[in-house]
């Protein structure tokens, strides 16, 4: 796991932060991130402006995202290499959780069927 030292401290990401990092695979400003996240989560995740601004400030100071441009007072950010490593590690954990959960539920379903 070379290059992954110090990544642990950023995990687990909150749902909002996870979606923000996913959005910033391409450069985007705050309002675009709000719209994108709402769309890809089918409206399940909405980002308030306070939540978004706070996350941008924190992620920028942790160097997980970086400012790329500024237009009409809207700053655009993009994920950094470090941000990608954090996102990849979070994704690995989520996949492990999803797989474990699916297996447990499938087993539970099988024993339910046996009892019938």
């Amino acid at each position: 796991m070379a290059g992954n030292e110090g990544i642990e401290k950023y995990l687990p990401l909150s749902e909002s932060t996870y979606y923000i990092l996913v959005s910033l695979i391409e450069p985007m400003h705050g309002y675009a991130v709000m719209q994108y996240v709402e769309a890809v989560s089918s409206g399940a995740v909405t980002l308030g402006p306070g939540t978004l601004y706070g996350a941008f400030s924190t992620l920028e100071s942790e160097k997980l995202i970086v400012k790329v441009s500024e237009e009409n007072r809207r700053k655009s950010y993009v994920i950094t290499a470090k941000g990608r490593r954090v996102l990849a590690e979070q994704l690995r954990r989520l996949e492990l959780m999803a797989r474990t959960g699916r297996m447990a539920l499938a087993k539970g379903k099988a024993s339910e069927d046996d009892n019938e």
Partner: protein
Amino acid sequence: MSESQGTKRRWFWPWQDEKEEAWLTGMASQGAHLIKVESFGRYCFAQGEPGDVAYRLDYTPLKKQDREGYIQVFADAGWEFVCEKNNWQYFRKGIAADGQAEIFSDNESKIARLKRLQNQLLSLLPVWMVLYVAVTQSNTGRNWLIFAGALFFGVLFFYVILMLKISARIKRLRQF
């Protein structure tokens, strides 16, 4: 214009922000819309049509160069920036406009805001310490020393209450 304006005094402690929001919403429903907040709890209102308006307070110490971008993020989400006082930002939005009337959409960011408030106020504590030491070392007479001492311990008491109140709120938010 001056006839349709008014001021009102009302004191809110820093941990009473939700009470303050509710009060401002109540004022708006009577047609008094916030213009600015001045020192010692002096609120300036413009008299107009009564409205269903949500007020929300953020606490973000902003650098001068970040202010415009910050306000723009809120504006894009439909929140009007009203004013700023001591790092508190006042926003409002017509409730009828849409259902979303929160500037923070998760508990993590609500906790982060409370921590900003705690950290900023804690960073001022050494200033009070230095002032107190300066006064007690300056041989300015007994009455003055008593006054300075009372003031200092009053401030210290305020800090303890503030930290306890805010910590309790953070704890409550963490339970969800």
